[in-house]
């Protein structure tokens, strides 16, 4: 707990949750790059979803206007975040829900654990939720003797495989059908040993496996895609029906949401419900979207708790450039178009938030020093910005964060020296000549010393030209 920074924006505490990787991105990426199966799975999956999303985005004549409206609504939301959260709290309470505030992961985990205990349950079923992955809720529940059951197919694959999620939308994107079949055969109790690797057969196995859990579990935990301040309405967007099961069958529903998920008005949903499915799964509309406002007598859970989580978001909000990362609606379009993500997969990013948005969100949630390699995990190609349905300028945030990370001393000295030289044309011209001579002297050798050896490991340097342009110009 960071109570010592009373009232000041605070980053997410270490030691809990999954926002920090154990090794720098280039090291983790190197391992992923040599995994041929992973490369193939990712290449196939991202290509599939890119083309599907492009097709349904292309159908919408006012896509640019919707994107601009999405960005404006989010910008407005962030500017008024405190009052909107108070409005949301009042609306949820008026509709029969109870609102809790959690300053960080530790507090959120404790609140949820206490609520589950109070309901007398030793098992909870979960709708896929990034935020509960972020705070490590499953680990916290397990250590309190409560069994969390992931009900989303991909989360189930990850949980049964004792694995980590690698994608925001499709946490098991790194697994292919053959691997999923193996995991089910190994870890799913009572599975048919004749299970094939047909996706339909695998989905049917998950249906049978979870059916009794749905019918008998009394507490569910969900995240939220949107929370409407004006009405107190929560919305969960999903495909399989596991979300509907969790949101309607249990007696008690606990929803954990990051405070940035609030939107001002009911009408604002008309923008996001058009943007999200097309950018995310590449569908015109996802199969199921559930919306609920507090509790409804005789229909669904009669006890509803909403946990509002900070966990570093206030620190992100404090950066006027970086706060755009809070606009994210977790569609994962930026992952699917990212040439880096496509090749390294999500685990290399360390955090539960991978890909381009993860590279700008994770370092801000934790403080840049704890995820210092992530802002560099991009070639700044800009494909993410073009794909983002709410127009988050991810490349600019990456560059901005690079200016905030602690730099290696030798690199900083070299950069300062280079800037000084380039600010003095005579020195600059001399350096050009020296570089040329150095290259000529060593022209038989192809290697450069570290750290530049990364370049010459796989690429030749160009032959030094006979003269620089400015020499040619002077002699003209």
């Amino acid at each position, binding site marked *: 707990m960071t109570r010592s920074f009373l009232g000041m924006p605070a980053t997410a505490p270490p030691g809990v949750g999954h926002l920090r990787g154990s090794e720098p991105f*280039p090291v983790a990426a190197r391992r992923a790059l040599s995994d041929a199966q992973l490369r193939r799975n990712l290449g196939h999956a991202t290509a599939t979803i890119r083309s599907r999303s492009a097709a349904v985005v292309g159908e919408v004549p006012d896509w640019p206007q919707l994107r601009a409206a999405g960005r404006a609504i989010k910008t407005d939301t962030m500017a008024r975040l405190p009052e909107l959260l108070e409005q949301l709290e009042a609306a949820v309470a008026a509709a029969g829900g109870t609102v809790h505030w959690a300053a960080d992961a530790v507090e959120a985990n404790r609140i949820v654990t206490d609520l589950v205990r109070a309901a007398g349950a030793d098992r909870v079923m979960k709708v896929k939720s990034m935020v509960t992955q972020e705070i490590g809720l499953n680990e916290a529940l397990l250590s309190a003797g409560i069994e969390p059951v992931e009900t989303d197919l991909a989360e189930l694959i990850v949980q049964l495989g004792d694995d980590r999620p690698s994608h925001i939308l499709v946490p098991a994107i790194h697994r292919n059908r053959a691997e999923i079949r193996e995991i089910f055969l190994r870890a799913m109790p009572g599975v048919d040993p004749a299970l094939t690797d047909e996706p339909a057969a695998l989905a049917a196995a998950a249906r049978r496996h979870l059916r009794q859990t749905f019918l008998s579990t009394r507490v569910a935990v969900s995240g939220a895609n949107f929370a409407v301040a004006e009405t107190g309405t929560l919305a969960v967007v999903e495909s399989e029906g596991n979300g509907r099961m969790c949101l309607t069958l249990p007696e008690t529903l606990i929803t954990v949401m990051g405070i940035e998920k609030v939107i001002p008005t009911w009408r604002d949903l008309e923008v996001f419900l058009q943007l999200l499915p097309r950018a995310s799964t590449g569908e015109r509309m996802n199969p199921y979207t559930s919306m609920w406002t507090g509790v409804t007598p005789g229909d669904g859970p009669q006890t509803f708790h909403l946990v509002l989580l900070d966990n570093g978001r206030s620190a992100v909000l404090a950066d006027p450039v970086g706060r755009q990362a809070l606009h994210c609606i977790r569609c994962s379009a930026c992952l699917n178009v990212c040439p880096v993500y496509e090749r390294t997969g999500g685990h290399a990013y360390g955090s539960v938030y991978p890909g381009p948005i993860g590279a700008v969100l994770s370092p801000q949630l934790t403080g840049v020093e704890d995820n210092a390699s992530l802002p560099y*995990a991009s070639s700044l190609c*800009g494909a993410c910005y073009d794909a983002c349905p709410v127009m988050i300028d991810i490349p600019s945030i990456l560059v901005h964060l690079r200016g905030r990370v602690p*730099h290696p001393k030798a690199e900083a000295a070299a950069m300062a020296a280079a800037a000084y030289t*380039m600010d003095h044309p005579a020195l*600059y011209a001399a350096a050009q000549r020296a570089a040329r001579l150095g290259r000529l002297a060593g022209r038989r050798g192809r290697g450069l010393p570290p750290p530049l050896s990364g370049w010459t490991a*796989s690429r030749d*340097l160009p032959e030094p030209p006979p003269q620089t342009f400015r020499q040619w110009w002077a002699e003209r």
Partner: protein
Amino acid sequence: MRVALFVTCLADTLFPQAAMATVRLLERLGHEVVFPEGQTCCGQMHINTGYPHDALRLVRRHVRVFAPYDVVVAPSGSCVGSVRHQHATVARGAGDERLASRAEDVAARTYELSEFLVDVLGVTDVGAYYPHRVTYHPTCHSLRMLRVGDRPLRLLRAVRGLDLVELPQAEQCCGFGGTFAVKNADTSTAMLADKMRHVLATGADVCTAGDASCLMHIGGGLSRLRAGVRTVHLAEILASTEAGVAGTPDGGAVAPAPTTGGTR
């Protein structure tokens, strides 16, 4: 028209033939080219590596050097992208509003070569001759920062003798990304491998682009493979004519000498 050449540090130092070609092309089209000697580097490398404070002096220099000119042209989408989308931000970040607004002024008068030819001069046929099979890589910053669109392709289609072949998955990044290629050398190489595979699949003998940096990357990889495919800057192709005057002093574009290097 009087055009100030923004040569870029990379072209000045390592790929002067691209800059010479730009000069010859613009002069052939009847324009006066001047070279403001005080220019060095736009600071993009410093900005993108996380050193905006070091970049500030380079931004200030760039703005001071180019402020007197009505039109500034560079054979680089990436450097023009930095001038247009980053210089004012760096200045504002340092609290220098006056520099920021001067940077915006300069940026508004700065063009990438294909933009300048097509939008300002209104030409697509520049009278070039280049009898080679060529594929075009639309570099990320030209494509997405500047939105040059099909301007380079329109210019290439008008080149006599040129056999233009489409590059598969052209819009995927080549993996250069400035210091990305050094800090994340493995990932960069994986991206480069795919780019080279697509270039080779075209059967082209020349891969061209509007950025010497990306060409250095792609060309460096192709050279390591001894793939027999050269990288040539768009300006060099557009400067080539039947008279054999190419970007290089030896007229190498029409009758190329064998090369072990990357971009020629």
